[in-house]
């Protein structure tokens, strides 16, 4: 396998010099970076058995090829170790699918971030946690994987604020937005399994996602009542943000999951219930100051989900507390969630990099 690197290099004096060199060129997210040395970058490429110039995919709107070397440089800068890099590569492969509409999601004034959800044994191999504080800096692995997504967007596709990124507000998930599902403490099939990934495989799911909207209900054990709270938050999002149906992620903590388990509710029952309950009529826009665009469609009913299987139900969160979250999609079905197995190539020939030397 060739590991010749093609990027321009710089010989700098010390760590301080490196930080200022990268910050001053707009190559960071504002935080310090790990110096992307050739040794560290090669280690990432070796881990995934890719050559430097291997194409991860092509951003379809601007027709920009993303190669493994540039992705590895940004992953190292984000703090990734080689073992984190397969998740970054697979997430980018998923993001580059046509149905994800990467350019629209990253350029929009809507300001979404890319949520990465990890499933499978890779979670344990890299130490990704899915319990306490799961939606914010819960562990090293998810923090650096999420950050690698953003740094690569900034540096490879010029998705910097004010350049390609035209977000009015953005949200903190743009720094890093990666979580792992708590498969061990859930009696459901994993999210990836529910999206046709074999149980034995590790996988990533990517979603162009708004900020989490937290809910709380600790005063009932009935699935219907617990889910009514989630559905109410989805309806609020439909009124206040976007009425269009799309992939909503629901992060459900252990306490709520236990009530579901006792009542015999699984993914299917939960999704069906939210599909029925997360609906509003367009006339409800009049209650939130949007009456001028109701027009003659006031009686039209809109559902948060085009179908129950558009729900991305994720088991995650600390062991105690009736706190869950809905994570709305960026904008209806314009961008669709994509799930890919990590390390799998289902439609390509073996590469030179995967052959024995």
């Amino acid at each position, binding site marked *: 396998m060739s590991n010749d*690197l*093609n*990027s*321009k*290099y*710089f*010989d*700098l*004096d*010390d*760590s301080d010099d*490196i930080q200022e*060199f*990268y910050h001053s060129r707009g*190559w960071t997210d504002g935080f310090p970076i790990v*110096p*992307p*040395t*050739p040794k560290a*970058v090669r280690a990432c490429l070796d881990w995934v058995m890719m050559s430097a110039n291997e194409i991860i995919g092509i951003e379809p*709107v601007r*027709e*920009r090829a993303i190669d493994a070397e*540039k992705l590895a*440089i*940004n992953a190292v*800068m984000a703090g990734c170790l080689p073992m984190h890099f397969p998740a970054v590569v697979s997430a980018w492969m998923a993001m580059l699918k046509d149905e994800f*509409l990467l*350019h*629209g*999601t990253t*350029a*929009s*004034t809507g300001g979404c971030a890319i949520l990465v959800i990890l499933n499978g044994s890779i979670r344990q191999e890299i130490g990704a946690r899915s319990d306490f504080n799961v939606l914010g800096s819960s562990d090293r692995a998810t923090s650096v994987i999420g950050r690698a997504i953003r*740094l*690569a967007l900034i*540096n*490879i*596709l*010029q998705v910097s604020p004010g350049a390609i990124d035209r977000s009015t507000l953005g949200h903190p998930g743009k720094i890093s937005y990666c979580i792992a599902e708590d498969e061990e403490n859930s009696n459901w099939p994993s999210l990836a399994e529910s999206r046709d990934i074999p149980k034995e495989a590790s996988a990533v799911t990517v979603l162009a996602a708004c900020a989490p909207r937290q809910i709380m209900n600790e005063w009932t054990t009935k699935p219907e009542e617990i889910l009514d709270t989630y559905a109410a938050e989805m309806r609020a999002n439909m009124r206040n943000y976007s009425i269009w149906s799309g992939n909503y992620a629901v992060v459900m903590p252990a306490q709520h999951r236990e009530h579901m388990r006792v009542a015999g509710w699984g993914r299917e029952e939960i999704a069906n219930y939210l599909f029925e309950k997360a609906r509003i009529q367009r006339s409800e826009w009049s209650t939130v100051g949007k009456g001028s*665009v109701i027009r003659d469609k006031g009686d039209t009913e809109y559902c948060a989900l085009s179908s129950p299987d558009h729900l991305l139900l994720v088991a995650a969160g600390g062991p105690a507390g009736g706190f869950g979250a809905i994570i709305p999609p960026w*904008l209806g079905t*314009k*961008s669709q969630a994509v799930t890919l197995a990590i390390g799998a190539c289902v439609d390509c020939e073996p590469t030179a990099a995967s052959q024995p030397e």
Partner: protein
Amino acid sequence: MAIRVLNPTSESMVVAFEPAPRLQSLKGKTVGLISNGKEGTTGFFAHVDRLLRERYQVAEVILRTKSNYSAPAEDEIIDDAKSWDLAITGLGD
């Protein structure tokens, strides 16, 4: 001892197309407007249409609207654009 570090940005920019020759005048020309279809485009492009005809003596203004304002224009619109002298794309946010 110096530390060697790598450039994280794209370095090989492939130019996908050559820009069309610039027009010397808009008089008598056909101008296409490609709208992203957002709420604000109706009034905005109506105004652009009027300006083009009144101020620049444009012969014809053709308005086409994308079905998805976050995605590139459909092939049919690109095909139509081949018969225009000039295309203007824009946002209506």
